[in-house]
């Protein structure tokens, strides 16, 4: 290439004083998977199309997230096929949805399942079914590869997310003392997954105060410990510790005993489970069918979706429970269900950014950030040479009232969020803008149930999960915490109860 003298002088003199511009990639992207428009139709009691058709199934499952899909899986596995599953979105999976581009599949929300303990019987059965658990051995390629997690703090990396560098003796003592407390809670057998199998009234008082208040009462005031407990609540509940029930906070740390270095994860996160479940029940699924009304009538119930009326003996309501008052006829308002707003983004990277010399990990978290960092979809690839990848960026809008944050999600445009995300990543990956070609953003106003103070022992919840009528509730929000195992547990339990009821009345 020949460079004219004028241009050469121009660029070289600019370079000399450090003024030359770095080339910046054009970044494409959009909001994807928006579903609030449909939710708002229900909220605003809009007019829905008149019924033109009628179909009969013994069971209708409303909602195609993990709860609904698990109910369907249980039915098929026990040889019961007279059911239909109706999902509002075009894609199934709910919080276990996934996306795919020419580089890799990637998650849209939930991206792992901790290696299940012995109490999670249904999860173990599912994983045996899917070949994840074989002869008591967890399939190695589904366990999270090394290196797993890293935290960026004080301008450097550390392995793991619990802060381990720059601690004073006081911090170290508090981390140790807290762990000792959690060990005791674990040994009590009260904090289990699924939650319902262990919970008694023994620690009910913990549900009466917030996690942050409880920590303060117990004499924990270390800033780093405070950061870590808040990170845990943001990560699993989309909430700050001050908005989280202490019972739920303790549950996060005391409910699991690792039997294998995990967690279980896949490039598309829990979307992998959704895919495997869909393969097993394709003929029972109807996507893009928004249920707008459910009317119980004596021994039957009618479910209205689009122009179709589905008549059924039982309805499994696996959609988020907060929708029930807008859909189910004569349903009382729910006050005790608070949901956290979230934002996730998938970033397509054309090459790997500068990471200050560190090898890529599965999960990356920044200490000084309101976000939850990102997960690398190519981490579970068997390939040795990886040059392009997709990062899933997680951001629970936990600080401030949920309604305000929900409005913020709606008000700000794509460019605003894209800039906020890149700005967050730039604190560590200074050349991120030269690497990213696409940023797709998913906004979720009601991403997950928030275990607020009093919610774990809420009477309304207990009532709904044990309801014996035509409509059975199955969403994970009945547990008060939104994790895969809870969704699967409630889905399977509802299916089991329906089969029992049908079995006694053929």
């Amino acid at each position, binding site marked *: 290439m020949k460079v004219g003298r004028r241009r050469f002088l121009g660029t070289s003199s600019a370079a000399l004083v450090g003024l030359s511009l770095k080339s910046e990639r054009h970044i494409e992207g959009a909001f994807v998977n928006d579903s609030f428009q449909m939710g708002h139709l229900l909220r605003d009691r809009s007019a829905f199309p008149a019924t033109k058709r009628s179909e009969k199934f013994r069971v209708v499952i409303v909602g195609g997230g993990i709860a609904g899909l698990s109910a369907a899986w249980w039915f098929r596995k026990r040889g019961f096929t007279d059911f239909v599953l109706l999902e509002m979105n075009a894609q199934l999976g709910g919080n276990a949805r996934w996306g795919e581009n020419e580089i890799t599949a990637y998650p849209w929300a939930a991206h792992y399942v901790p290696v299940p303990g012995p109490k999670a019987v249904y999860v173990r059965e599912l994983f045996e079914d899917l070949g994840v658990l074989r002869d008591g051995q967890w399939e190695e390629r589904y366990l999270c590869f090394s*290196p797993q997690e890293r935290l960026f703090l004080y301008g450097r990396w550390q392995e793991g997310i619990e802060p381990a560098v720059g601690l004073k003796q006081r911090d170290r003592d508090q981390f140790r003392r807290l762990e000792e407390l959690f060990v005791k809670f674990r040994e009590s057998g009260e904090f289990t997954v699924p939650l319902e199998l262990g919970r008694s009234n023994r620690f009910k008082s913990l549900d009466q105060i917030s996690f942050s208040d409880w920590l303060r009462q117990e004499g924990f005031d270390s800033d780093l410990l405070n950061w870590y407990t808040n990170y845990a609540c943001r990560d699993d509940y989309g909430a700050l510790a001050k908005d989280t029930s202490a019972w739920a906070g303790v549950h996060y740390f005391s409910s699991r005993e690792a039997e294998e270095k995990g967690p279980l994860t896949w490039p598309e996160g829990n979307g992998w489970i959704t895919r495997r479940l869909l393969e097993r029940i394709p003929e029972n699924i109807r996507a893009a069918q928004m249920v707008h009304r459910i009317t119980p009538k004596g021994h039957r119930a009618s479910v209205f979706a689009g122009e179709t009326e589905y008549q059924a003996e039982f309805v499994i309501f696996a959609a988020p429970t907060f929708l029930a008052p807008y859909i189910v006829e004569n349903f009382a308002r729910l006050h005790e269900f608070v949901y956290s707003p979230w934002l996730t983004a998938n970033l397509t990277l054309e090459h790997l950014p500068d990471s200050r010399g560190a*090898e890529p990990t599965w999960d990356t978290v920044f200490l000084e950030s309101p976000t939850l960092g990102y997960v690398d979809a190519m981490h579970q690839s068997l390939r040795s040479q990886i040059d392009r990848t997709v990062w899933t960026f997680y951001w629970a809008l936990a600080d401030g009232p949920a309604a305000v944050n929900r409005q913020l999600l709606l008000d700000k445009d794509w460019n605003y969020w894209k800039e906020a995300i890149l700005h967050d990543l730039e604190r560590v990956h200074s050349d991120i803008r030269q690497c990213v070609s696409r940023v797709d953003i998913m906004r979720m106003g009601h991403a997950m149930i928030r275990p607020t103070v009093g919610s774990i022992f809420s009477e309304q919840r207990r009532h709904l999960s044990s309801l014996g009528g035509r409509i059975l509730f199955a969403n994970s929000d009945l547990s008060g915490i939104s994790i895969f195992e809870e969704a699967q547990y409630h889905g399977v339990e509802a299916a089991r109860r329906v089969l029992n009821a049908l079995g006694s009345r053929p």
Partner: protein
Amino acid sequence: MGILLFISVLLIAACGLIYELVASTLASYLLGDSVLQFSTIIGTYLFAMGMGSALSRYLNRSLIYRFVSIELLLGIIGGFSSALLMLAFAFTEGFGLILYGLVIVMGVLVGLEIPLLMRIVRERYAFRDVIAHVLTFDYLGALAASLLFPILLVPHLGLVRSAMFFGLVNIAVALWTTFLFANQLSGARGLRAMCLLAMCGLAIGLAKAKQITATAEDNIYADEIIFVRDSRYQHLVLTRFKDDLRLFLNSHLQFSSRDEYRYHEALVHPGLAAVAASRRVLILGGGDGLAVREILKYPQIENITLVDLDPEMTKLFATHPMLTELNQKSLLSPRLHVINADAFPWVDSNTDSFDFIVVDFPDPTNYSLGKLYTTAFYRAVGRHLSTQGLMVVQSTSPMFARDSFWCIAETLKQAGLLIYPYHVYVPSFGEWGFVLASFHTYTPPASLPSGLRFLNLEGLPALFQFPPDMAPLSMPPNQLNDQVLVRAYDQDWKDVSH
């Protein structure tokens, strides 16, 4: 005349600074520790300039003649200084002596310049003007040189030619001074002739600078670099010293042609010669074709599949004359099938079965390569073994990376295979280890192909004996979700180097 004189001051100041910078930079390049080199050379140079200034008082007659001679001498010495230093480093033991000798000689000569010049012009100007003008242009020249050197000279001309170019400038100043002071100068003709002669010498030097640099560099890096390529995956460097060819991938030595036969005979024959009626062989890694060369010694082998990530690598070893001589054109064999793919996904998706499998990857220096040393990977490879099949795994050094070696052995065991570890001495690598693995009991071969240079039947049992300093260690297996091997390997080599 005034302005021309002061331009001369500017030019000789620039020359003086360039020689100093060239010497400092070269010393930094060749000896390292640039802070030390720059400090000591600038210090010595300035001190020598002081000596020059002190000596100037002893020069009393024919000042102009002396000034021109100094410029001429400086042009020659300074101009050739860089080439001289490079050759001195490459071919002599006395680089330091020559370096500081040159710096002192140049410093003294530069130190003489300005005092002489001031005395030459003092009759024409007031003393304070002489000081002001001469020093102003002296410092201006220094500024120009210090900017030109890093921005234009080093990147575009290189050190050897930069010095020569300024040598020419220096002599040009000498030449033009003979004309400037023609009426006060006797013997101008002789000086001019010498100037022209020196300029011719430097011009030739400029033209030949590349060869000078190359000659010196060949010797500096000991081995001639005959091939460098950055492929998408790795940095390939091939070097030669006399009859020794060496391949480096990402600066890790892969083989030395002097003793690679030991490595590759040991890699292939203890396993392959023990498989009765072997027909199909798989090689994972091994894009240099050297394992293929050994495998082709078995006429009954019908089909060899070689899976190597890097097409540049297999292309280079199929075409470069020195390399095809080394691998005996093995990569051009009609029995060979080359697939350029990432090994784990390939092994995972392919269903062919093989009688002998060679697993020859770079050492597990990072988590990406570590995936190729896991129970999950060996299970996937094991599915390709025929009932009589054997596989052999390059397993690092049981001597220098003892934890790593036994970790790889344990990993193969946990993948459900029977293991038969062995080791061999390869001078360029040191003690090196392999693990044979299969689903049945291994019986050592009863015969070996003819024409082997290292391996014979008598020597075979000794390979499987591990003396106490390499004896088995209890290690956990390396797994995708817990890559203990990468950490062990890192620690092993840290222990060796400390």
